[in-house]
Structure formats: structure tokens, C-alpha cells
């Protein structure tokens, strides 16, 4: 069963979900690298948590309009809208007051999430709301996904990967040297806007796969792990993409075998495993090779007269 799932032989839906998760992971690793270099890691966490009220609202609106409320595309649109509101609120608090960005991030994260929980309890009391299965958006649930939903995730992941590929140069330039980027005609403000839009896209596509509580991990961990293998930003983007893609692929496979477990934590722990290996053993900057080099240099120095 494991090998079947690993080699994409476990049915059409499972295959599409696995491929979709892998594409999402690649996009998350690549976008996350730029985001970490631009020092925006925790803003993404606020955005991810801020999707919950949007998901709840979208469900209620769709039920009110006569639908069944579970259309993934509709829920994703609601999520994107409220994530955008969260981002604007972080910006508003830091512009209008003397509070630092971290306080604004924490406030938006907890208040929007609280509002989302209120929304979920409202839905639970609605007729037919009990079967909504919106809890799957908290920690991810890929097992038994509908064909249409899997298609949305795979398509969205592919578009996100393509966009990062197209926009990698301006984004990286701004991440490293906003002043120089400006002189060659790239507006840092616009590049940041594009970056946050990509982060939002990954977050929203990742809702069903990783869940909104942990999707930020898929953005950060592969990027930080890739940093140990290279000093070149262009390479870091794709190493992170590979790590994120592999962790998501394997996580989705494991999830088809253990459908009761939430998918998000599995994927995050796999990525964290790669991170730990990188931290210890990566040849360029890992802790063990660095210590060995240090010892060799000291031995040489002692040997010399």
C-alpha cells in the first residue's frame, strides 16, 4: 500500500492530491525563501490565521445563497479576502501607532483567529452545518478529498510555481538590496506587494493540505533548511522548493495510509527532519562539518612550528 501510494498507484484522487501537495510544497519553499530573506516570516503566520473568519463567512454566504457551502474554491476566495484584511490591519496598526510590527502581528493573528472560531461555532448551530468539516482547514486533511478540490489544489500549485519562476529575479533583488533594485527600475513596494500576494496564494492553496495553523511552517522551514546548503540566493530558492515539495509529497502519501491523522503535522515534521539534517550535516554550513574544519585548522596550526 505504501509503495503504491508512493508511486502514485493508489487511485486517481489520491494521485492528484499527492501531485497537488508536491506542487504546493515547491511553491511554498520557493516563495518562503524570498519571504525569509525579506524578513517577513511571521507576517505570513498572521495572514494564515486570518484566513479562518473568511472561511467561516464564505461557508455561511454560500449556504445563504442556496449552495451546500463546501465548495473549496468559494472557501478559498473567502480565505484570501480575510487574509488580505489581516495584512492591511497589521499595516494599519504599525502606521497609526507606535506599536512594533511583532505586536501588530500577534494581535491580528489572535483576534482574527478568535473571530473565526466564533464563526465556526455559529456554523455548528446552523442546519446542516455540523457536517461542514471545516475543522479540516485547521490542521489539513487530504485523505478522501473530492476530485474537483484536488484539481483546484494541483492547478493552483502549478500556477504558483510558474509565477515564482517568472518573478524570481525582481523579488530576490529587492530582498537583498532594495536601494539597488530601485535604481534599476524595480519598485520595492510593488515587489513586496507581489511577494505578499504569492504568500497569500500559497497560504490559501495550502489550507486544505497543511491547514492554516501550520502552513507558515511550509513557508519557513524549507527556506531555513536550504540556507545551510548554499550561499547563493538563486540556488536557495530551488533547494527550498525541492525540500518543500518532497516533504509535502511524502506527507500526502503517508496521509492516504493514515487517513485519521491530520496531514499538516505530518508534512511539517518531515520538513523539520530535513531541517535538522541540514543544520547538522550540510557541507557548506552545517554544524558537524564546521566543527571538523575547525579542528583540522587547529591541528594544522599546532603542527606548524
Amino acid at each position, binding site marked *: 500500500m505504501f509503495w503504491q501510494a508512493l508511486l502514485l498507484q493508489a487511485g486517481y484522487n489520491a494521485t492528484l492530491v499527492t501531485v497537488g501537495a508536491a506542487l504546493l510544497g515547491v511553491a511554498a519553499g520557493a516563495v518562503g525563501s524570498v519571504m*525569509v530573506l525579506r*524578513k517577513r*516570516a*511571521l507576517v505570513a*503566520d498572521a495572514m494564515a490565521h486570518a484566513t479562518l473568519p473568511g472561511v467561516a463567512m464564505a461557508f455561511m454566504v454560500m449556504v445563504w445563497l442556496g449552495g451546500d457551502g463546501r465548495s473549496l474554491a468559494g472557501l478559498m476566495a473567502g480565505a484570501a479576502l480575510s487574509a488580505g484584511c489581516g495584512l492591511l490591519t497589521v499595516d*494599519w*496598526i504599525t502606521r*497609526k*501607532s*507606535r*506599536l*512594533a510590527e*511583532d*505586536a*501588530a*502581528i*500577534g*494581535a491580528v*493573528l*489572535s*483576534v*482574527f*483567529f*478568535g*473571530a*473565526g*472560531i*466564533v*464563526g*465556526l*461555532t*455559529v456554523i*455548528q*448551530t446552523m442546519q446542516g452545518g455540523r457536517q461542514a468539516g471545516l*475543522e479540516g482547514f*485547521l*490542521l489539513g486533511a487530504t485523505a478522501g478529498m473530492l476530485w474537483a478540490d484536488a484539481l483546484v489544489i494541483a492547478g493552483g500549485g502549478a500556477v504558483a510555481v510558474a509565477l515564482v519562476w517568472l518573478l524570481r529575479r525582481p523579488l530576490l533583488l529587492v530582498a537583498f538590496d532594495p536601494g539597488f533594485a530601485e535604481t534599476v527600475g524595480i519598485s520595492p513596494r510593488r515587489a513586496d506587494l507581489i511577494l505578499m500576494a504569492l504568500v497569500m496564494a500559497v497560504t490559501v492553496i495550502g489550507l486544505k493540505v497543511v491547514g492554516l*495553523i*501550520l502552513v*507558515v*511552517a511550509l513557508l*519557513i*522551514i524549507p*527556506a*531555513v533548511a536550504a*540556507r*545551510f546548503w548554499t550561499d547563493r540566493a538563486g540556488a536557495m530558492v530551488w533547494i527550498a522548493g525541492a525540500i518543500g515539495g518532497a516533504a509535502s509529497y511524502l506527507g500526502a502519501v503517508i496521509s492516504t495510509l493514515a487517513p*485519521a*491523522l*491530520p496531514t*499538516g*503535522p*505530518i508534512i*511539517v*515534521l518531515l520538513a*523539520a527532519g530535513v*531541517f535538522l539534517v541540514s*543544520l547538522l550535516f550540510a557541507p557548506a*554550513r552545517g*554544524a558537524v562539518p564546521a566543527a571538523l574544519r575547525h579542528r583540522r585548522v587547529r591541528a594544522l596550526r599546532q603542527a606548524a612550528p
Partner: protein
Amino acid sequence: MTAFLQLSLTPLLIGALVAATCALVGNFLLLRRQALLGDAISHVVLPGIVLAFVITGAVAAAPMLLGAAAVAVAAVVAIEAVKRLGRVEPGAAMGVVFTTFFAAGVLLLEQTDTSAVHLDVEHALMGNLESLVWFAATGPGSLIDPAALARLPSELPRVAAVAVVVVALCWLFWRPLALATFDEGFARSIGIPVTALGFGLVTVAAIAAVAAFDAVGSIIVIAMFICPPAAARLMTDRLGRQVAWSVVFAVVSAVLGYMLAGYGPLWLGAQDAVSAAGMIAVVSGVILALAVRFGPCRGAPRRG
């Protein structure tokens, strides 16, 4: 009156105590630019609590506090290690560590048979404030009846004890804490153990988070660590007054949020209450928004 005593008194008291305790610690975290540490800690304590449950096989306060505090300290060390070894910014280092710990906690929880006790992921997030009822109360007389008081939810004495400890610690270490917060270099130069103090603060925050977590869930903990102190910061330039404001805001959020969650839907014609934990967070957010818009000290600190 009896209904109020049975159903609402203990949740209100527990909510207000938890909110005030977290807000008190949150003031120092906010001023030390560690506002998100509260967020990180409340994610990180989950594996500690689950581990304590796996080892002892019971939902008991002391092992859970120990487990969570130990894991919180381990997380702080891990964040520091990732920051140094990986040479990444603090935000990303924190993100790596707390999401990993939380993911481990969730999987451990899902793998453990907790059907006999009230311990699951949703409970960890949202708590069960509404279920902390006091059925032994038969009327106002129960408030002085030892037999009835003995049957109060055990969460109440626990959060009260933690609140007392946190207040006592803040009072005891007020001056060194204030000095180390505002001018670390000067505090170090006059011999205050700044690093130890920082670790102490994190540990106290972890203890507050765990005690609160069991009763009210992590949303309230995160919201109360940040929103009331942040709103209070925009009301005054003086530390003492800021702490006082933050406690007032926290208690108002808890009481108003609980009331709105319980009675708000009834006023609107709906039947069921909504999540009190979520509503308390929302009210604290509204207070913060008002402070950002109208707070007398919302801009740069005044001189002179």
C-alpha cells in the same frame, strides 16, 4: 441568581483571572519586543502537556505544568541555537521551532488514547470555558458554604494560585524587571542578572500559559498576552499605569466577551451560544482597535 451562580460565575472568574495574569506578563514581553514569544509558547506547551499525560496517564496539574515549562525552556534554547547556527533572523528561527513543536504535539495527541479524558486538539485551541460550571451552588448561601465551595471546578483554585504567584513575582522583581526592560545595558552594569531575568520571564509566561490553557484554550492566552498590553501601551507613557490599564482591559475583555458569547445570540434571536474564547479575543481586538484610533499616547512617546 442560582442559574448565574451555577453557570456563569466560575467561567467569568476563571476567564477574568486568566486574562489578567496573561496581560500582566504580556506587558513585559511587549516592551522587550518579545510579543510573539507568548504566541510561540502557547503553541510549544502542547507537546509538553501531552507528554506529561502520556507519562503519568492522568490530567494532573503539576506534571503538566512541569512538562510544559520544560518544553518551553527547550524551545527557547532551540530558537537560540537555530538563530546562531543558521544565522537566520529571530522571526524565522522562532517560526521553525514553534511550528515543529506544535506539529509534534498534535501527532502525539492524535496517537495517544485520550478518549477517557478531555484532551484533544480543538479543546487545546478553544478551551472549555462554558463547561466549567458549579452545580453545587443552590443560592447565594453557597458562597459561604464549605461543602459547596469544595465542589467548585478545580480549574478555579489553580488559575487563582497562578495569578497570585505571577502578581507576587512581578511585585517582587518590579524594579530589576523594569530596568532590564528599558535599558538592558545599564541594568547589566549595575549587576542585575539580565539573562537570568529574561529566562525567568519566559518561564513565568509558560506557567501562565499552561494554567490558562487547560481552562480556556490557547486563543485567549495568545490574545491576552498581546492585545490588552498593546492597547494599554497607547494609553500612557508610564509603566505602572500601563500595567494597570492592561489588567483593566483584560478583565473587561473577559467579562464582556463571555457575556456577548452567552447572551448575544439570544438577543439576535438565535438559540445557541457561540464560542466564549473566540468572543473574548474579538473584544480584546476591538479594544485595541479603539486604542490605535483614539489612545492618547498612540504616537511617539512624549518628551519631558
